[in-house]
């Protein structure tokens, strides 16, 4: 009986009053609910708050006071110092170097990885051939292999790739080329490890577009690339934005690949940050450390707060089957 009435929402429930019960904003239930959520929100927001507050204090105030207290005297000196003069080892040119390194790593990695993954996803969705689904399945399984298993052999692959390219460049008189330890080595690694999730994202998106569009393109004589550039690309701006969000935050936050596949001169920001904060020499300047930490977190935070719902969509799309 209950099921029958529940399944027909148009019919009210019995003769009594209809619609939701008017809610009392201060019912004990609501106080509990909002109270819990506010406490949770404070807990999650606290570290960001502590970072900001600490980075705006002077060292004497930090030694005297309470880490949760707002600064009595606001100073931007720690920010300036973290950006331009903080030391890692013998280099004292601050985090700015790491920042620009990260930018130089980020731009080509995002462009290359998204370009390759979008074409791959399109081919997998619309131009299947015998075996393509099999490779895709292995690609998805590969996403779960711990990176540590593949790290060392990839070093060898990159070295050999460099030697292979050098074979041609030396023959052409252009000198030797290195891939391992350079920016492009890292770009290749980011492209490889971004591939499973991005390909899945693009494949599912292209597969969800109406097939008639594809067929119409075929009838009009468009081929693989014609359909991709003239029909698919103009329709897929949202998914490209989602992919960019995923890759920008993912590559910016990377630490492991940066440590292994680059050299100290081109270490990304996360690696340099860790070296600055966890260096054992010198007096610890906590305000500078927190300013540096905040600076490193700034790019993904801006991406997160600006993109809002798209960020959630990105991770959900990535997570659902990733």
């Amino acid at each position, binding site marked *: 009986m209950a099921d029958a*009435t*529940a399944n027909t*929402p148009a019919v009210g429930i019995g003769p009594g009053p209809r619609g939701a019960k008017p809610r009392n904003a201060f019912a004990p239930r609501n106080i509990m*609910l*909002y109270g819990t959520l506010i406490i*949770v*929100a404070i807990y*999650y927001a*606290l*570290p960001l708050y502590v970072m900001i507050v*600490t980075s705006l204090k002077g060292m004497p105030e930090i030694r005297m006071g*309470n*880490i949760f207290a707002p600064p009595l005297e606001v100073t931007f000196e720690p920010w300036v110092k973290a950006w331009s003069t903080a030391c890692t080892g013998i280099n004292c040119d601050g985090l700015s170097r790491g920042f620009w390194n990260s930018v130089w790593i980020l731009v080509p990695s995002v462009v290359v990885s998204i370009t*390759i993954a979008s074409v791959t996803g399109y*081919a997998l969705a619309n*131009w*299947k*051939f*015998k075996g*393509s689904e099999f490779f895709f399945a292995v*690609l998805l*399984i*590969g996403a*779960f*292999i*711990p*990176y*540590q*298993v*593949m*790290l*060392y*052999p990839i070093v060898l*692959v990159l070295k050999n790739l460099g030697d292979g390219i050098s074979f041609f460049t030396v023959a052409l008189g252009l000198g030797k080329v290195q891939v391992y330890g350079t920016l492009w080595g890292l770009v290749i690694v980011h492209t*490889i490890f971004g591939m499973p999730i991005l*390909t899945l994202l693009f494949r599912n998106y292209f*597969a969800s577009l109406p097939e008639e569009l594809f067929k119409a393109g*075929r009838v009009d004589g468009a081929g*693989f*690339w014609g359909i991709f550039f003239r029909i698919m690309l103009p329709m897929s701006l949202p998914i490209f934005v989602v992919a960019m969000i995923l890759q920008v935050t993912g590559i910016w*936050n990377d*630490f*492991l690949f940066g440590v*292994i596949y680059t050299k100290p001169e081109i270490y990304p920001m996360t690696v340099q*940050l*860790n070296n600055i*904060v*966890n260096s054992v020499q010198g007096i610890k300047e*906590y305000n500078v450390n927190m300013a540096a*930490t905040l600076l*490193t*977190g700034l790019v*993904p935070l801006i991406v*997160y*707060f600006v993109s809002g719902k798209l*960020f*959630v969509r990105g*991770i*959900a799309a990535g*997570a659902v089957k990733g």
Partner: protein
Amino acid sequence: MADTGISSSSGARGAPGSVATQATLPIARKPSRLFRNLASKIALVPMILTVLVIFVGCTIWTVVHSFTSSKLLPKLDFVGLAQYERLWGNDRWMVSIKNLAVYGTCSMIFSLVIGFTLAALLDRKIRFENTFRTIILYPFALSFIVTGLVWQWILNPDFGIEKVVRDLGFESFVFDPLHSDQFVIYGILIAGLWQGTGLVMCLMLAGIRGIDEDIWKASRIEGIPVWKTYVQIIIPMIRPVIVTSVVLIASGIVKVYDLVVAQTSGGPGTSSQMPALYVMDRMFKDQNLAQGFAASTMMLVAVAIILIPWAYLEFGGKKSRG
């Protein structure tokens, strides 16, 4: 007629439209199978190379070399299971495994419970839902390095929580997990949960929102308390989302590396070692390659033990997905 012929052969759409007569079209034989759909095959070369060279090739390479005595350079002189015997006799590795077990169990339970509870709270048609969600999810945009450094600062005994509580008058209050052999892993756990529960919450919330509104009407009519509905009706209904979350959390746990590096660098002593750290130190610091390969192979085995039952449950019955 021609139209239906084209659409029925979807999947293996032929090379450039050679317009044959209607009668021969569906069974027209192309010159060579290899060159059919050529553009698509060329487009998938990066993916196929990634799968074959990196995911399959490099993994097999590492597993094979874990049975050798490679030190500074990889070489193929097999020593059977000697590396594994050494691995399981090594104190640091045993500490890593113990830490991983504690961190993994706690992280899994707390992520699921907190993630689900928060999702259920946000699902109660509250105001400012977006604000709360934004605050709870933002740590997920930050890197593990930033997360680790912030929590290192908050847990700092001289300036952080311990000092603040002592200043309030509780002179004997002790909260210094990062410098205690016994509790350091829980210090890392706090940071890890702060970073990762937002994602679980978002997944669970999406799952809860996907449930038919009629279920709620039915449970209201039956007079089932709200919390009981969540526990006994909603949880079984969002099983796929929970399984996805479990897999995601688990694969994150096995990989945990940067967080520990930033927060404690594996210390004090070796008490916050993790398998990923062990692998990295053996391979890139101690020049003891084969030992690192053996340890990373064990990580691979651990992931396989988690994944194979999941893959079997999820995809065992079905033929295709997507």
